[in-house]
Structure formats: structure tokens, C-alpha cells
């Protein structure tokens, strides 16, 4: 289960460096309007939020594609789009429940996150670390953090946990 997640939207300033980094990776030039991650600016409500593909298990974008332009990359296991096959109908954009597929206005093809083949640049260049790469290490670290939270709540501290353990066995000379 690998994907880029929005870990802390509250510190997103809307600077758009994720878009800059994404376009540089995929276009080898800078053009935020052709980025696969999109910072949505709900200006009247003072909200900015980066929208990005969830890498769904049952992708609605793939399901609706009439020409099977979506394919699973064997090396990375990420769903990608074959631009040669794509007819530019845009149904994938509509089908995505998260609005996470963007559109290239010039080439008329969908822009879908491919996790930069395992090193997502949007994550790497996000200064306030709004975006996180939820890979194996992330899930491991997260589970550990949750467990430590439970310990804290239940025992007060790790020391208490260890103390309770020690109390389970007494030895007298």
C-alpha cells in the first residue's frame, strides 16, 4: 500500500512547489499547470490543499477507460497511462472520486501520479512536509507511533510498563 498522502494540510501555504517539482520530474521543464499533483485553492474559505492520486486498489479511472490505456507498471506496481493508446476522452478525470487526475491541455492526456518510480518529488521538495510518502517505512513508523501512544495512555510511561514487567517476577536471596 504505497501512496502520497496529505499528512498535515493545516500547514500547507499553497506555494505550489509540489507542482513545480512534479512538472520538472515528468516534463524536464517547469510548468505547474501540467503537474500531476494539484494545489486546490479555495480562496474565499482560506483553504489550500494538495490533491493527489490515492493509487486505488480498484481504480475508477482504469475501469472507465474505453481503450485500456491504463496499465500496471510491472517494475513499480503503479498504475500508469499509455499516452499512445489514450484517446483523450477525459472520462478518467470525471470518474476519479477525488479529482486527483489532472489534464494536460496541450497534449490532451490525463496526468496521473506515478510516484516518480518510488521517490515522489512532491514529497521531497515540500518544505513544511504537508505531503508524505506512505511507503512501508512510513506505515511501520506510524504503527510504532500509535503503539507508543497506547502505552503512554495505558501505563503513563514506558518506564511504568517496564516496572510492571519487573514486578511480575520476584526473587529473594
Amino acid at each position, binding site marked *: 500500500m504505497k501512496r502520497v498522502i496529505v499528512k498535515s494540510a493545516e500547514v500547507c*501555504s499553497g*506555494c505550489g512547489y509540489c507542482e513545480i517539482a512534479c512538472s520538472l520530474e515528468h516534463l524536464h*521543464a*517547469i*510548468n505547474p499547470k*501540467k503537474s500531476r499533483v494539484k494545489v486546490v485553492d479555495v480562496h*474565499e474559505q482560506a483553504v489550500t490543499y494538495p490533491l493527489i492520486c490515492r493509487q486505488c486498489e480498484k481504480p475508477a479511472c482504469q475501469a472507465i477507460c474505453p481503450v485500456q490505456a491504463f496499465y500496471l507498471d510491472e517494475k513499480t506496481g503503479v498504475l500508469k497511462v499509455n499516452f499512445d493508446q489514450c484517446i483523450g476522452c477525459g472520462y478518467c478525470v470525471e470518474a476519479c472520486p477525488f479529482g486527483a487526475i489532472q489534464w494536460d491541455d496541450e497534449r490532451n492526456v490525463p496526468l496521473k501520479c506515478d510516484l516518480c518510480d518510488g521517490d515522489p518529488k512532491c514529497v521531497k*521538495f515540500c*518544505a*513544511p512536509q504537508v505531503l508524505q510518502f506512505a511507503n512501508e517505512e512510513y506505515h511501520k513508523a506510524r504503527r510504532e507511533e500509535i503503539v507508543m501512544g497506547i502505552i503512554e495512555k495505558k501505563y503513563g510511561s514506558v518506564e511504568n510498563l517496564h516496572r510492571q514487567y519487573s514486578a511480575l517476577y520476584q526473587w529473594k536471596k
Partner: protein
Amino acid sequence: MAIYRGGYTGTILRINLTRGEIRKEPLPEAIIRDYIGGRGFAAKVMFDEVPPETDAFSEQNKLIFSVGPLVGIAPSGSRVTASAISPLSGLYGDSNAGGFWGPELKFAGYDGIIFEGKALSPVYLLIDNDRVELKDASNLWGQDIYTTHHLIQEEYGSSVHTVAIGPAAENKVRFAGILVDAHHAFGRMGMGAVMASKNLKCIVTHGQHDLEIVDQEAYKETVLEYLSEIRSDPSSKRASTLGTPGLIMMLQNWGCLQTNNQRTAVFEYAEEISGERVRAEYTVKDAGCYGCMLRCSAVEKRYLGKRPEYETLQALGSICGVGDLEDVLEASHWADHYGVDTISIGKTISFAMELYEEGILKSSDLDGLELSFGNGKGMIAMIHKICTREGCGNLFADGVARASRQIGEASYPYAMVVKNVEIPSTEPRGEKGRGLGYLTSTRGPDHLRSLPFAERILKPEEAKRLFGHEDASRMTGAKGKGNMVKWSEDFVGLSDMLGICKLGWTYYSSTMPRLINKGLTLPSRLFQAITGMELTEKELSVAAERVTNLERAYLTLQGISRKDEVFPDRITKEPLPEGPSKGSVHESDLMLDEYFKARGWAVETGIPKEETLRRLGLEVVIAKYKAKGLL
């Protein structure tokens, strides 16, 4: 899509408003090498095309918007310079803004726009990539900044970015600004009034061309190094959290917080208007400009506008003696609504307040207002009056210097101006290098032309080694400051030319030695990676020096010399009455001597010497000087 090497689009738009003519011109190679872009490009165009004696409101004045090579590409690469002869100073003027418009102009395919002449009736410019058109703006004229931006987005969609003027500019308020997307400002020097004098209401921009980078690996490596610097530096964390308002309490604690029209430099209610309070009680979200990793801005909750910067919190706070933050926020909101410089309008109102307190102006001269220091509601009323030129506002809409000449000699001691422009906040008596920078700035008193932050953080031995005297490490020291200001002007001047933000690139490091050791390393590496041009750090610094000298030359051709680089007597003769900088005055003469020497300018006149101009390749200036008998 790029039609040039990395960093530049290679195209300049020249719009003749009189004839309604739009031309696309190539950006000349020589300008790139010698003046880099941004402020440097504008200085060159002004020097070559606008005669120094031109009146600010005449058709011969030109309004130039220019974006440097790093705009749209580098972190904090959001800055645009707007240049013209200023209606406030009557001299060379420019103003600089961030936001998202500059990058958008670049994506549309342009490194700059030169506006000439004057449209017959109100127009706005539409730039949609290669399509550029002048459109009728009669339905927009008279609208405030927010409404203008809103109406444009209603017509063209929310992805377009705008620069626009408001009613203050239309009413020729001499310190009216130009607002970027309604929230970022080309505040100073009245560039908005120039735009209005050309009947130009707004520039609507949409662009989606690619911007190329020559060496992408070097670019990424440099940006990641910069990012790790930012993440590891405690003062950048402070900048992200508090933004520039974090300076309010620092200035208070240094005895530099301008209060009551510079009567003093400590403010009883500093905490009320402090960055800490604004962050804790009045902000809802972080914000920043395009591609900025520092994110110094925020959204304030009262009007969902941008959090006021420290200059505004002072100008519409302590300088008017106003300690009620709600009043300050409201005043700032109205300033953006009308599109006016908060620094100049705050200083103008504080001038009126002091005249009222001194009995020089009566309530009857002020449309019945009891305009004492601290009267927040009165301050807001004055903003409405000045921006609409209603009642007594008409007098003050021309700025402190002109109003003072109208009111008469009794008001002169209270006019806090240099070269007809209101002095920005941060008390020059408490921070003397900065004060010197106000005098030497090539666009009227200004803190961002020099930003000599070294005086705040250097150790004495470092100051001695770098700038020739230990005193340069003390904010109230005078010796060594001439050298420091010269160094700082060139250092930050390059930011204006490249189009990157000074806060983002030069101000994030808490330790001066680290910054001085790093110097321009990161920006110049980025410049090389992006453009592929082999200009060394040294050559870039020389280019910055060249630009300052060219601007100086322009000013001297306008008749400016050392005699004009003077503060009002309050700054040079009246010691600060209280606080940490108590007893201090600004030793301008001593510092100017050192500065002019460091610059290679004649000490008596401040006119650049022939050998200096020759070293910088400014033979064009020598020719003009000789023709005018200045050399």
C-alpha cells in the same frame, strides 16, 4: 516551448497605450549579461528611454514591469519590479512585489512589459500566452481592488492572476500602489498613480508555457541544499511562524519601534500589535508566494486577507500611536481596498496627528476630526479621506512633503521625509546602518534597498574584519556602516535582479558569518544551473554594483547630489528620549563620507567618479555626465 535559454523567455512586451499598439521585442543579449534582468533590466530601459527631466504623470513616463531569470523557477522566485519616474519623489522610482503574477507572466512567455504613452480611455491588458490584447476597462474603472480582481476572475476564471490599481491610484494619490491578486503590493513610490495616469486599470495574465532549466541535476541539488538550510535554521522557523510581524517586539526591545511620528522609538502597546499576538489570535492559515519554502505570510481571520507585514503594523499602529489591533487590521484592509501604500499613508496620517497635537492644525482644518496620536478611528477616517481626496484628504494625498509646503514652515520639523518620500519604519537613530540605507537608496528612503542586517548580528571582530570597524557590529554604531551598506546594497540588489525574495534568500540565516561565508553561493549556483550562463559570483556582484551606479547616475542627472541625502533635524539633532537607544542621533555625515568612498563616488557630491563608471563599463553615463558638465 521555451524559445530562449533557461531562465529567460527572451521576449519583452512593448505596449504603446496612445496608439493601442502591441509589440513583442527580443530581450537584448547585452542587457542579460550586464544587467541580468528584473530591476537591472528596468534601470537600463529607464536610462536609455526616459529622459531624466520627465514628469511622472506625463505621457513620456514609462511603466516597466520586469521579472528576473529566476522567477517562476527558483524557490521564492516570485518577485517583480515595477519601475517609473515616481510622482511622490519626482525621481527614479520602483517598487517590488511577490505573489503569483510574476511567475504567471513568465509562463505566458514574457520577461517584462514596457508601457508607454496614455490610453484615450480606461483599458486593461489581457495576456493569455501568445495572445495579447488591450480591452475596454470602463466597467472596472472606479472599482476597488477586491472588486476589480473579483470581476476579472468572474470573466476569465480563477486561474488568472492580476495586477490592478484601485481608487487611490485613479484619484492620483501620489503614494498609490499596484496590487497583485488583491493581496500583494507594489506598495511604494506611487507606481499605481503612474499606472492610472496611463489609463491602465489592470493586467490579466494566464500562461502555460514550459520554463526550461539548462542543468536540471545541479538545480535540484542546489534547491535541496537550500531546503535543508531552511529546515535546520531556527530563524527561518520563526519567519515561517511569525513572518515579518515577528520584528515588532524585536524592534521594541532594540528601541527602534517608530512611535508617534518618530517622537520616540518605544511603544507602550507594542505587545498589542506584536507578531506573536497576531499569530496567536488573528491568523487562520499559513500563506506565501509562489514556490516559497519560507512561507512568511499568513491569512488573517478578520477579513481573510493577508496578515499585515511589520511595516504596516508600525505605520498604521505605533507610528500613529494606535495600539488597538482591530483598528490596525481594519486600516490595513482599507489600504488594500483603495490600493495605497501603507507606509506612506501611515506616515502621512502620523504627520497630521503631530501637527494637530502641536496646535499647528486645528480640528476645523481636519474636517472636525480630533486627530491625536492613538485615535484609531480617526486614522481610518483619514484613510477614506486621503484615498478619495475628500475634504482635508486632498491636501495629504500628495504626501507629507507637499502637504508640509502647503501648510507652511511651522510644519517642517514634523515632516519625516527624505527626498520627498516618507521614511519607512525602523528608527534610523536606533539602527544607524539602516538609516544610512534610507539616505543612499536609489528610490527614496527604503529599507529593502540595503537591508544591512549584519549590524544586528555581527560580532565586533567580524565587523572589524569585514567592514573595517568594530562599531559596525553595534546597531547604534556609526563607523564601518558605510562599507556595510555598500556591501548590503550589492548583496540584496542581486535578489531584485534575479527576481528572488530577499527574505527567502538572504534573511533566513541567523548567523551572519554563515551567510557571509555562503554569500551568493546558492543563488549564483542556481543562476548558472538555470540559465547555463557562466557568470561567477564576483561577476554577479559587479552587475549589482553596475545597476546601483546606473540608478545613481539617473538620480544625479535629475539633479540629486549629497545635499539631498539628509534626514529631518529630528533624526540628526534630537536624541531619542527613552528606551534602549536613548540618547542616540543619526551621524549621517560621517557615514555618508565612508559610504561614498566605498562606492567610488565623489565624497562632496555623491556623483560617481569617472574611474568607477569606467570600471563598471558605464561609458554611457560618462558621456551624459560630460554633456551636462557633471564630470
